[in-house]
């Protein structure tokens, strides 16, 4: 990723289908301290695709204004999240054949291999957004640092994320409009993983981030990103299914989903009658709880099934001819669920039944308690990813005066 050293002030913006959240943090000793947070209802995004740029731009500007006002600091650059099917990922490889006479890998060999991987042109009309490091292979064996080792063939791998050029320019332009630079893009699913999965988890874990419009997933294997993908189905589809089935408004459906919904349909649900308002007054309506859980569980489990198929399809593309099995052996830490729709009752149980892997709802690790909810894994994770993905800062001695200056720099 970027080789620039980490700034002391980091602003991240997570643009989702339902809400746009922004977080400003001060980085002290590699840890973020929250200065301000803002969250607003997103306008102009449907199913993870931008439909009204003007409204969305206004929304982004509002959250940036919020965090600037809340902290009294000026934001100069931001990290933007990237989610939905617009960002397409694939594995790219670079090779170097090591000269036979000495057989020791040098730093130049490594950089040559990286160069050759990055020379691969993205498909016509698409721009490369980011590269994520995957295992380096020396003679088909994974190695952490090949420099100094003996071998014949060095292979470096990246997970490359590309985006349609116009789409990327649009997103950058949205932020540039208020004289702020986009420092980097971060894959939303990667961010969600950084907030909820430990380093031990990353030996084998599938993080599924179910947002309002899209479901993004990422698979880690042996500490590296193996592959990632996105399904254009999310929490709004749950609400829509319910509003269609019960012929009720979106708002009522959303409310019933939160109060009575479940990702599992149980036979007993059919015998329960629930009231829309609960006061049994004029306009109150009765519904069969079984209908609600039936509709929601079908959609929820289907979405997870789509994820399962997408994971397998991408693994097949990476390891052609190998029968890859998604089991506890390969993914010992199982599934971590994040995003707003991870809050649906029995979500983990439903995922467990579809995937055949242990599943849990991921709570982001953060100092501020109000953000320790699955729906904030994205924005909290952006901050965490921005810190961990940056190269280690160049240590320079800083006196008291310098720190004081830093503190009062506006």
């Amino acid at each position: 990723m970027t080789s620039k050293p980490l700034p002391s002030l980091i602003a991240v913006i997570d643009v989702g289908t339902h809400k746009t959240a922004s977080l400003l943090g001060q980085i002290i000793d590699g840890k973020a301290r929250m200065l301000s947070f803002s969250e607003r209802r997103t306008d102009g995004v449907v199913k993870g695709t931008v439909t009204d740029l003007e409204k969305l731009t206004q929304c982004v500007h509002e959250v940036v204004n919020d965090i600037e006002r809340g902290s009294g600091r000026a934001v100069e650059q931001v990290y933007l999240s990237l989610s939905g099917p617009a960002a397409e990922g694939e594995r790219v490889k670079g090779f170097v054949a090591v000269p036979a006479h000495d057989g020791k890998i040098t730093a130049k060999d490594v950089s040559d291999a990286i160069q050759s991987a990055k020379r691969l042109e993205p498909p016509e009309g698409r721009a490369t957004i980011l590269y994520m490091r995957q295992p380096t292979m020396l003679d088909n064996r994974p190695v952490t640092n090949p420099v100094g080792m003996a071998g014949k063939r060095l292979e470096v791998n990246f997970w490359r994320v590309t985006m349609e050029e116009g789409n990327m320019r649009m997103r950058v332009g949205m932020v540039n409009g208020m004289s702020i630079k986009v420092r980097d893009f971060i894959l939303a699913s990667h961010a969600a993983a950084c907030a909820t999965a430990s380093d031990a988890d990353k030996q084998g874990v599938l993080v599924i981030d179910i947002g309002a419009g899209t479901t993004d997933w990422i698979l880690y294997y042996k500490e590296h990103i193996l592959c990632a993908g996105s399904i254009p189905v999310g929490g709004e589809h749950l609400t829509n299914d319910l509003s269609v089935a019960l012929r009720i408004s979106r708002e009522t459906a959303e409310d019933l989903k939160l109060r009575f919904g479940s990702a599992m349909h149980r036979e007993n649900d059919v015998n329960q009658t629930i009231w829309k308002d609960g006061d049994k007054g004029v306009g109150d309506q009765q519904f069969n709880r079984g209908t609600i859980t039936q509709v929601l569980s079908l959609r929820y489990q289907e979405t997870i099934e789509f994820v399962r198929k997408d994971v397998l399809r991408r693994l097949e593309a990476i390891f052609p001819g190998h029968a890859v099995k998604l089991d506890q052996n390969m993914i010992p830490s199982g599934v971590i669920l994040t995003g707003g729709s991870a809050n649906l009752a029995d979500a983990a149980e439903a995922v467990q039944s579809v995937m055949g892997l242990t599943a849990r709802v991921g709570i982001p690790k953060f100092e501020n308690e109000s953000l320790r909810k699955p729906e904030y894994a994205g924005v909290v994770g952006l901050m965490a990813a921005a810190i961990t993905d940056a190269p280690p800062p160049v240590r320079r001695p800083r006196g008291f005066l310098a720190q004081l200056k830093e503190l009062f720099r506006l």
Partner: protein
Amino acid sequence: MASSAAILLVGLGGAGCAMVTRLSAQLPAEVAMALLDTDARALSGGGPGGTLQLGRAQTRGMGTGGEAALGLASAEAEEPALRRLFAGVPVVVLVTGLGGGTGSGAASVVAGFAAECGATVLSFATMPFSHEGERRMRQANDATVKLGQKCHGLVVVHNDLLLQQVTPDAPLSESFAAADKWVGGALRGIASAFAPGALIAADPAVLKSLLATPGSPTLFAFGVGQGEGAAMKAARAACDCPLAHAPGTVAKVASLFVTVAGGTAMTSTEAFEAVGAVRTRFGGETSTILCARIDPALGDRIEVAVLGASLPTPKAPAKPKKGGKVEDPAQPIFEFATEESMRRGLFGGTPMTFIDGQDVDVPAYIRKAVRLPPAP
């Protein structure tokens, strides 16, 4: 082939012809029938009424192979024959399956000719199963929009809905029987209302005034009741008819056309009770036209068929003159509640998203054909 019958039932394309053939046995004599298809073999067996092969030059009797453009050209080529078929018929009921070539392509053309010949055109169109994939679904969607602009009333029957009506292990023929039951019931109701001998009769002009506004959403429901309180049972069944509950269909309409048919034991009180129940559910504030008919063959059964339309805008379109085209194709005056808004709910109007050949914006329970628990 001008006929003196009040209603001409037209089956178009493979699915449409099959349905008309299945229905022919249970329809009263006042209904004339015609089968239209591009596939010569499908028509070779003859039919309950006349047959007309479309696109003899275009397809050479081989069918369209799913090409809507070919279906459209085939129908246009038979313009004189189609106009002869529709001449003097007050009501044309067009039954077709959308998604394939003949139905998707020719339906709007055939409906257009019939309307131009002065007939009131009511169309029943079936939509493909979700599992039939992207191409057929898109083709069917386009066709509903075009068809809606040409005919006076359009009732869309989703094949997915049919699957929900039967147990998962029931044979496929049983789910199609549900569609036959609904459409057949509606036709029996409408046809017998115009026939002499009805208890409370109506004439074809009534249907015309009800469906006067092309493009207004059409409501349709059908229910049967038997035994004690049969009329109320039938009315309740009609209120619960899945066709009226299909996602996106109109909940209340301004004008209703209700036909009640029953055996000799049916009393007028019963009939009016049934109509009352239907009105409570569907509206019909502006006008409710009631038809009642005694059919000894029904025994203690009572059938209730409901057809309704709203008049969405006060501005009435210029009536198409005989043989003349008045609509400006660039500016459709009305738009039907199409497939888009009907099943996709809040996602209506957004681009379709396909995974494994299914439009995933359509609720999962509809695509998986899961019958939901009954309302309390």
